[in-house]
């Protein structure tokens, strides 16, 4: 037959693939981009509060974190993952944990500790045992304590030589007002002072469903309640130090916090408890980083103990 009717021209070799055949628009990089957007108000506020050196430190940390990840992937012949933007998030958060006068070369070491040691050597995104930016901060804190606690400022709106918690610990009588604390007119690392912009970022993340509000609310709530019970000024404590930065942007890190809401609540209570104990009874004025780090480490155990009960219940043996 020379002529074949059209309906006999069948299409062969169509693509076979597993369902579902449509996917949500969100990708890992869009999630990370949302975190960067949420951090933007804080970066801007910080630039006003502490001066333009904020932007230099932030740029250096982002460039170094992305650069270290790129180099690590190249050296180990892994697929390059910097496009997922998670290294940029680490860079910004690490920068937000540095005082404005912090030396650049030391910041580079912090980035190395965060990206290469904490993240990539443990298997890259999703595999790190602790929040990379947090470990970077702690490495810098124990290595260069003098520079990490140099609160002298110049070039911005803030004129300070100590943090509110430091002033509290040293028995200073001229403490900043609640409004000053809320707006960030106080000494501290770049990203921790302006509670207003941190709150805006947190609300954005919850609205975009990047995070659930459980960890920030329970963490801050626990600190408030414990401080109240132990006779400290609860409002002063939650508005001071790195609590908002830590609770909204660091304790909520996907990889190092529990998956279920119940697990998140347990995690956040633990963070709050350790923070308050360090702040009120420890030798450091601030306890947020150590609290989150310790809770990061026990996250796998919390995860194992807080599995969701499936629909239909669990079978009794």
């Amino acid at each position, binding site marked *: 037959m020379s002529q074949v009717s059209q309906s006999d021209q069948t299409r062969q070799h169509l693509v*076979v693939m597993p369902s579902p055949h449509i996917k949500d628009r969100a990708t890992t990089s869009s999630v990370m981009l949302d975190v960067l957007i949420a951090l933007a108000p804080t970066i801007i506020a910080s630039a006003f509060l502490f001066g333009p050196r904020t932007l230099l430190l932030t740029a250096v940390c982002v460039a170094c974190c992305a650069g270290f990840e790129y180099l690590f992937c190249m050296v180990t012949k892994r697929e390059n993952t910097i496009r997922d933007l998670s290294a940029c998030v680490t860079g910004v958060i690490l920068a937000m944990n540095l005082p404005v006068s912090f030396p650049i070369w030391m910041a580079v070491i912090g980035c190395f500790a965060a990206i290469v040691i904490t993240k990539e050597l443990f298997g890259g995104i999703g595999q790190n045992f602790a929040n990379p930016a947090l470990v970077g901060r702690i490495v810098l804190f124990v290595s260069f304590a003098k520079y990490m606690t140099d609160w002298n400022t110049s070039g911005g709106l803030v004129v300070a030589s100590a943090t509110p918690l430091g002033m509290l610990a040293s028995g200073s009588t001229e403490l900043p007002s609640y409004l000053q604390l809320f707006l960030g007119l106080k000494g501290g690392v770049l990203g921790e002072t302006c509670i207003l912009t941190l709150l805006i970022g947190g609300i954005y993340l919850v609205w975009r469903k990047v995070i659930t509000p459980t960890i920030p609310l329970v963490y801050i709530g626990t600190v408030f309640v414990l401080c109240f019970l132990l006779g400290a000024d609860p409002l002063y404590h939650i508005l001071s130090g790195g609590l908002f930065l830590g609770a909204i942007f660091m304790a909520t890190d996907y990889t190092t916090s529990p998956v279920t809401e119940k697990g998140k609540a347990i995690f956040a209570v633990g963070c709050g408890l350790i923070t308050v104990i360090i702040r009120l009874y420890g030798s450091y004025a601030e306890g947020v980083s150590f609290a989150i780090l310790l809770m990061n480490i026990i996250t796998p155990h919390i995860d194992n103990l807080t*599995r969701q009960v499936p629909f239909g219940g669990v079978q009794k043996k």
Partner: protein
Amino acid sequence: MSKDVIRSLKGVAVRHYKNTEDYVTETMPEPDRVYLPCVQHMGAPCTPVVKVGDLVKVGQLVADCEKPFSSPIYSSVSGKVAAIEDFINPQGIRTQSVVIEADHQQELSETIAPPEVTDTASFLKAVRSSGLVGLGGAGFPTHIKLSLRDPAKVDTLVINIAECEPYITSDYRNVMEDGPDIIEGIDLVRKYVGKIENVYIGVEDNKPKAIQRLQVLTQGKPYIKVFPMRSQYPKGAEKVLIYETTGRVVGDGMIPADVGVIVMNGTSIAFLAQYIRTGIPLISKRITVDGSAVTTPKNIQVPLGTRFVDIIQFCGGYKQEPKKMLMGGPMMGITIFNDNYPLIKNNNALLCFGEAETKAIPESACIRCGRCVRACPFQLMPAAIDKAYRARDAEKLKALYVGRCMECGCCSYVCPAKRNLVLTNRLAKGFLREISSK
């Protein structure tokens, strides 16, 4: 029991693309040849009861099986049996297919007559003879579903018109065009099956016209409640629908009748009424044809056994080169590897897509965001299952209840790392079966 309690299982808000909802069903003329596979239901394959060369008429029995879990197959055309050939269905089951060359006379078989229904036994016999299987997609033989072990226990009938899959509008068209048949079918089932006191018609609230029409149709029938549900995939999944409408939980290894519920698809129940009235068995099916590769998306009534290539031709042919074809919706539909497949009873949509929708997005590492855990209607933990399967940890897979996964696809849908979590769940279930059979 209060019915006003707000209860809801989780799921995902999918984009719906219900492009064809206002397209009135067109009847597709019979093609030159139909291909009737002997497995069009969940259960034992049928054996052909006709020989090559036999003349058959519309509605004549061509294949049947004595086993309880099967459903007879009738000719959708009048003509001559041209061949009985081997056939492999998209799930890989090898069976036979009866090929009938149409004479385009469409002469009705003289065996067609409205069945005599006087009691439960004769009703169930009629249901079996109708060839009806679950038309929503599962293909479960309806006469088995309606044969109750403990009829006194079954007090609720749930009609599934959720139509939660994107693109598909055939059940919606069924309400708009054959609405009274749904109510008639409900009354038939109520009369002959169980002790049904309550009937719920579950409809997603993205179909307000259907809800309104059903409310009008059910006036004066207080036992029927039209039950609008928030439009959230997968409200039409059986266990989800039962929970939403009645609050009852169908547990592991249970069937809906164990909790006193029968669920029937809206199109199935309407067909049942039509069959009891006319005696014409299941020989055609309303389907939605849509997708970026189809020139004219339509809702059409198609004779069973019509090849997809003929259906597409009736819809104006391909608009662009097809790369992916789906039987069913995009969330749970099955891809087929060529368009030579015939339409079978439980198809409700044929979707064709071009290059753009076919590209597989590469998987990246799990970032533990927990979206899959928050999306799973059955509160499973897909990311943890994924990890346990990769480690081939059978104990952990059992502890994570992977066996309860209904493969609805919510986890894969929401995953920002684009991981094929449903696929892993399927593989994990297969892995557990393999282990336990050793």
